[in-house]
């Protein structure tokens, strides 16, 4: 069965220099099991192809049913240098929530 990430999770993103942080929070325990299993570094890196040009780091916060991703080399030089309209990566959490996941 294909599910949309936006139906099981919400999140927030922001900037850390030229890296963006994307926090994804599952609405319930079952949702956390799904994101914990499917939102791998590889999957997220592939999702952000053409946006994230560096490494992706993943951190787990099971206490908040959340994952935190750091997308390096993503913001066109960072906050004040970047020419991007979204220089601070504010819309990248929504961009990650576009993902669709196959679950059993």
């Amino acid at each position: 069965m294909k599910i949309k990430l936006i139906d099981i999770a919400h999140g927030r993103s922001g900037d850390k220099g030229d890296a963006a942080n994307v926090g994804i929070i599952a609405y319930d325990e079952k949702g956390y099991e799904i994101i914990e299993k499917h939102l791998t570094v590889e999957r997220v890196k592939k999702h952000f192809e053409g946006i994230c040009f560096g490494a992706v780091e993943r951190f787990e916060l099971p206490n908040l049913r959340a994952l935190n991703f750091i997308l390096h080399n993503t913001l066109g030089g960072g906050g004040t240098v970047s020419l991007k309209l979204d220089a601070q990566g504010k819309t990248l959490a929504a961009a990650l929530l576009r993902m669709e996941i196959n679950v059993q």
Partner: protein
Amino acid sequence: MKDKIRIASGQGFWGDLIEAPYYQVTKGQIDYLVMDYLAEVTMSILQKQKNKNPELGYAKDIPELMKRILPICKEKNIKVITNGGGVNPVACGKAIVKVAESLGVKGLKIGIVLGDDIKDSIEDLIAGGSYLKNMESGVCIASVKDKLLSANVYFGAFPIVQALQNGADIVITGRTTDTGLTLAPMIYEFGWKQNEYDLLSAGTIAGHILECGAQSTGGNFLGDWESIPNFAEIGFPICEAFPNGEFMITKHESLGGKVTVETVSEQLLYEIGNPEEYITPDCVADFTSIQVEQAGENRVRVFGIKGKPETEFYKVSCSYADGFSSSGSLTYSWPQALTKAKAADKILRKRLELLNLSFDEIRSEFVGYNSCHGPLAKELDEDLINEIQLRISVRSQDYHSVERFGKEIAPLILTGPPSVTGFAGGRPKPNEVVAFWPALLSKKLVEPRVEILEV
């Protein structure tokens, strides 16, 4: 010792809702009003203002705000803590003294935290073997020292605590961590010690929840945002803190917004790196230890927080001039809005090339189509697209190239694809690009100082 204090956030950045701090002091009972005014770029802007006029260099909104709230704070015994002193906290303090005198407010102590500004000591620091290496590139700061605009150490909560212990009703700091503004009153009121790392981490995390204003009370909430009531009068967060490190996030009842586990969790995840190591000058907080639960309507209980000792370094944020940038836009309407915008972009780039201008980067974005999500944006049947804004931006070390770019946008109206509009603002001017230089500095080399002004 008090068994509970209420700390209210009044500002998440310089430019945030002007009414928010006024609401915080008038719509219910609080003990402290804390306001974060300093984004990284703010320091360089303030430094430029101070270079032109030595009486400036702080958030000018503060004296204006004080005119409105000082008598209320005095009457209700609310203390105010803010880092809006920028690069000139003394001038900010003096401006507040003037406001107090004009209002006839007496018996007021204003604590000023000084010592964070190290711009004038950079050469000495380098000579002494502190190279302030860029945390990302590892390069010594000497390479940009002639272009430096500002250089500040991030102080933590303890200099503010000292000001409170000296009787300050208002504390004005320069570059203090956003979290320190909230942690300081807890340390002061509850007598927390410098080595009680779980407690310091709890106060730090409370500060993280408060530091972006309404972002923890429903603002920018990516969950069910339409369920947030009364955005127009959104209530900024209030932290009810207890001596054992537990705290409750809430807001004034009569105001809008919503405090739920979801709204608070989004803010907890905002702009963090490794959640087990949230480093501040006061402690290293562990975000994986945080427990949150809904304790009532618009009340979220936060508890269980653990932390570790602080590091031996201060973070330093330096800003330097790094060339120029400019951005211009034109809007194309149906039919073929996207095709026309893309054609205009090509024409403009060809003209820039023919002019032999020099750019480090040229970036084109199609607002209404893919400027936010790039390749993730869905392909659209072009007949369904009503309009597209072409936004084109350049960056260069060469001022002339950027200035000339600004003169090449408007001609597209008469010399390019049709049904184009939206060039009312005149030629875009070159902006100075301010870049940042994050570094570390041994805590032994900088000493915070506290001064008290009395009215």
